[in-house]
C-alpha cells in the first residue's frame, strides 16, 4: 500500500493534459515498470474518458428553472417558519375566548342557567338528552363542548388548506 514518490509528478502532468508529451523518457520508462504508476495512468485515463463520454450524453434542465424552484422552496420554508408561532397564537386566543365565555356564563349563572334549562323545553328535545345533561350545568357543558369542537374543526381546516406544503 506504499505510494510511489513519482506519483505526484505523473498526476500533475495528467491534470494539465501534458502526459505523455511533456514527460521525460526516464519518467515514461518508470511509469511502464512501476505497478503504482502504471495503475495511476490506466485508471486516470479510463475514468476521465468515461467522464467526458457521460457528461456529453446528459440533457440539462435550464438553470433558471432550478433557480426559481430553489427560491420557491426557500420562500415556502420561510412561510412555514413564520406560521408556526402564528398557529400557536391562534389556538391560544380560541382557548382564551372559550374560558372568558365560560366565566361570563358562570357569573350570570342564575339567569343563564334558568334560560338554558328552558331551551330543551321550548324546543321540545329534552327527552333526547341523556340524564346527566338534563341539568342546566350539563347543558352549559354540552354547548361549550360543541363550540370548542367547531373551533377545533375550523382551525384544522384552515391549517390543512394553507399553502405551506412544498
Amino acid at each position, binding site marked *: *500500500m506504499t505510494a510511489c514518490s513519482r506519483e505526484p509528478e505523473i*498526476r500533475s502532468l495528467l*491534470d494539465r493534459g501534458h502526459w505523455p508529451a511533456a514527460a521525460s523518457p526516464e519518467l515514461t520508462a518508470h511509469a511502464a515498470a512501476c505497478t503504482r504508476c*502504471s*495503475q495511476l495512468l*490506466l*485508471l*486516470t*485515463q*479510463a*475514468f*476521465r*474518458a*468515461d*467522464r467526458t*463520454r*457521460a*457528461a*456529453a*450524453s*446528459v440533457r*440539462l*434542465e435550464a*438553470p*433558471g428553472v*432550478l*433557480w426559481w*424552484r*430553489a*427560491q420557491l*422552496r*426557500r420562500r415556502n*420554508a*420561510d412561510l412555514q*417558519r413564520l406560521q408556526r408561532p402564528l398557529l400557536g397564537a391562534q389556538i391560544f386566543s380560541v382557548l382564551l375566548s372559550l374560558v372568558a365565555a365560560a366565566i361570563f356564563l358562570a357569573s350570570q349563572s342564575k339567569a343563564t342557567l334558568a334560560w338554558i334549562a328552558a331551551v330543551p323545553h321550548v324546543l321540545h328535545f329534552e327527552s333526547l338528552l341523556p340524564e346527566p345533561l338534563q341539568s342546566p350545568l350539563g347543558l352549559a357543558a354540552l354547548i361549550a363542548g360543541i363550540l370548542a369542537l367547531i373551533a377545533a374543526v375550523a382551525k384544522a381546516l384552515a391549517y390543512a388548506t394553507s399553502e405551506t406544503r412544498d
Partner: protein
Amino acid sequence: MPYESAIPQPLTGDAPELTGGHARAAGMDSDTFAGFYERSARPLWAYLARVSGDPALADDLLQESFIRFLAADAPTDGEVASRRYLFRIGSNLLRDHWRRPRHTSIDEVPEDRVPLAGTTEQSDSAILLGPALQQLKPRARQLLWLAYAEGYSHQEIAAITGLASASIRLLLFRARRQMARLLQNPRPSERRPA
C-alpha cells in the same frame, strides 16, 4: 441540542434550514449561478449516473442537488469549494437513496443489481470502463470516481463522503487494484469488438 444540528446540513441530508429575505441564494445571483451550473452540472451528472448505475435517478438527484445547493448557505470562497460542496450534497442524496428500505447501505448493495449506463456504448478511448465498473461495489465506484475522474485528494473525498481519511486510503487501495485488474483482463464477452 439534538446532535443533527451540530452537523453541517449536507451531511444530515435534510432540507437545509433556510433564512429569510434572500434575493440571492448560495451567495450567487442568477447569472453567476447559470455559469456555475453550466460548468458543474455535467461532471456531477456523470458522477451520480456512473456511481448509481441509473441515469434517470441521476437526473432527479442532479436537480435536487442544485436546488439544495441554492437553498443552503453554500460556501462563497470560490468555485472549487462550491463544486466540492455540490458533490457533497449529491453524495448525501446517493447515500439517502441507498438507505431507503429497499437497500440497507451503499456498502451492501450487490453490484450486479445495479445496471450501469452506457455499458454497451462504443468508445473512442482504448478501454471501456463500464463493464469493469459494473463489477465493483457502489462504494468502490464512488471512491474511484472521485479520485480518478474528478482528481480529488483523500482529504477532499473524506469531506465529500463523510468517511474517515484512513478508511478511504484502504478502500481506495483495494478498489484501485481490483479495477486495474479488471481493466487489464476484461472477461472475454466484455472485450471490445475489433
